[in-house]
């Protein structure tokens, strides 16, 4: 009951602060930039001479391909894939089989090759944005949740109320997490809307592979291990469904980012310092996880898993040079969130508010 009242209050303050307007303006800029990029790409594509439309009898060719690939797979089955090349061949065959089966079962014709696909364009862009732009927006939105009240002195009149400090903090965190999740989820659909408006609605049913594992093969003479996607456990989803999942995962990852920013706002009493600290930790984490490619501890950084969808679709493993799964990514983000939140509750519960 008291918690609900705290949440109501925090929500009222969040939506009326100028910060929200700034964040929305920046988000709109981002959507605008994406739209511009898509428009540009579409113009380039339109210069390419139109290639053959997908023939009406794509089913026949798909069936033929499927039979050939299945036959080849049966031949390869006995030989184990213990080199990168062999694994690559196997993976391509498996992928072909899975794609053809999906198309035939759901009656999904392939898109013609010179047609832009708004769905997959958006999915790719969101994969990049969730590691860079969206976390920064989240930090701006909630990076002074507690520090702002410390700086302005309004924390005093909050703490003198008959509400426990942990209830106040929990309410503030709930609003931070919910607003970060809502912001990022809505932003994903804003990107999608723009892309579909520019590129057209096609592509919603195209196949998308999830749960791809990545194996790394060390080859004599090669400096780095070669990553190969393994499709043994892969599942094929229609793109729209995969995008929905991706947006939800972005929202989840942004809850973790909001928690990190929130902790900074508890630990640093100045609004500016706390926002900068949160922003800095995300940028530094991003740089470190990109630079320390191939080190196994990179998996433990929260910035590695900001694109949880990449963990699921194999992209993250390729980026960091070591295998990760969605479960690991979620576990890492949860662990960071739990530890940091515990620190902020301990700190805020015991802190003497001396000169706010």
């Amino acid at each position, binding site marked *: 009951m*008291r918690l609900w*009242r*705290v949440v*109501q*209050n925090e929500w*009222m*303050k969040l939506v*009326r*602060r*100028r910060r929200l307007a700034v964040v929305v303006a920046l988000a709109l800029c981002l959507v605008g930039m994406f739209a511009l990029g898509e428009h540009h790409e579409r113009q380039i594509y339109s210069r390419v001479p139109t290639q053959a439309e997908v023939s009406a009898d794509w089913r026949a060719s798909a069936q033929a391909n499927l039979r050939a690939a299945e036959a080849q797979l049966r031949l390869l089955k006995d030989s184990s894939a213990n080199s990168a090349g062999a694994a690559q061949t196997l993976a391509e065959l498996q992928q072909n089989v899975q794609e053809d089966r999906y198309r035939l079962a759901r009656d999904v014709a392939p898109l013609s090759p010179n047609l832009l696909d708004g769905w997959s364009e958006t999915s790719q862009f969101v994969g990049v944005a969730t590691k860079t732009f969206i976390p920064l927006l989240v930090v701006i939105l909630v990076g002074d949740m507690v520090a702002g009240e410390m700086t*302005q*002195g*309004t924390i*005093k*009149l*909050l*703490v*003198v*109320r*008959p*509400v*426990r400090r942990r209830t106040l903090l929990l309410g503030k965190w709930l609003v931070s997490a919910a607003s970060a999740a809502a912001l990022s989820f809505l932003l994903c659909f804003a990107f999608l809307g723009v892309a579909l408006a520019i590129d057209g609605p096609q592509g919603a049913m195209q196949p998308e592979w999830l749960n791809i594992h990545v194996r790394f093969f060390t080859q004599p003479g090669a400096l780095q291990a070669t990553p190969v996607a393994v499709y043994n456990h892969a599942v094929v989803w229609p793109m729209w469904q995969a995008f929905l999942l991706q947006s939800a995962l972005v929202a989840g990852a942004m809850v973790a980012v909001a928690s990190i920013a929130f902790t900074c706002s508890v630990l640093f009493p100045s609004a500016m310092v706390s926002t900068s600290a949160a922003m800095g930790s995300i940028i530094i984490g991003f740089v470190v996880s990109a630079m320390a490619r191939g080190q196994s501890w990179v998996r433990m950084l929260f910035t590695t898993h900001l694109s949880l969808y990449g963990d699921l679709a194999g992209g993250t493993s390729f980026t960091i040079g070591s295998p990760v799964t969605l479960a690991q990514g979620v576990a890492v983000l949860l662990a960071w969130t739990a530890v940091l939140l515990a620190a902020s509750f301990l700190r805020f519960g*015991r802190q*003497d*508010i*001396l000169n706010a």
Partner: protein
Amino acid sequence: MNVEHEGSVHVLQLFDVSKRIGGREIVRQLNMSVRAGEVYGFLGPNGAGKTTTIRMIVGLIRPTRGAIRVCGHDVERDPVNAKRHLGAIVENPEMYGYLTGRQNLLHYARLAGVDHIEARIERVAKRVGLEDRIDEKVKRYSLGMRQRLGVAQALIADPKLLVLDEPTNGLDPAGIREFRELVRALAAEGLAVFVSSHLLSEVEQMCDRVAVLQQGRVIAEASVAELRARAGSLLLRVSRWDEAASWLRARGFDVEGKDGRLVVARLDDARVASLLRDLVAAGFDVYEAARTGGLEQSFLALTGAESGGDTR
């Protein structure tokens, strides 16, 4: 049961409260109690530990040792019940400038667990004279209006104890006077008011009892009426003033005479009465007699000379 009973008499109690920050003892072994309907002044120079004490009472700071009870509930162990009947202004009442006055009050009323919030907001807004501007954003309020809103938020939960930290800082004389009247009216309704100040005159005009804090210790506590009666000087205008001065000196009074005026130092009520009687009986005409600086001198006597410079 006992606790509840105690709470009904003593709204605020401090038991041996000490606070140490970074090896320095800011506040040492404070013992105070404030009754319902009483305005309790907490007087001391800046840096004596007034704000630290107030922040401990309202739960912003934890005491290193000792206990604080509001209406019988320990502020540290049972903060929800202790703060239910507490209203406070801690230094400047900073509000959310981007919200309206009404939204600010709504915000605090929700946290205080007030029922019938809308009606309550109307009532406190009216009480502090803010009902016309209540729907304006606080960032457009003047300092005086912010202070009123500060009082309104302190009263929002219908408190039994009002804790005010230097409440008249930054107010103009009219505002101070208005504020003083409000505090007296609230005490008359049965509220206990704990008010800190570094101004002796303010405490004298507003409070029933006063504690003097110096370097973290309460060095004196007394009722204001008692202090006022206890000592002071008497300003006299009489006929044949030089003659009267030597007459008084002969009787052991401490007299200074200048330009037809006499100042007789260190007198309590009884001695003033007998002096005037004897003076008239001895054939001097008394044109004017006025007591001055009663409280101030009492304080100087109570606290020793060192506090004189700070507690004007």
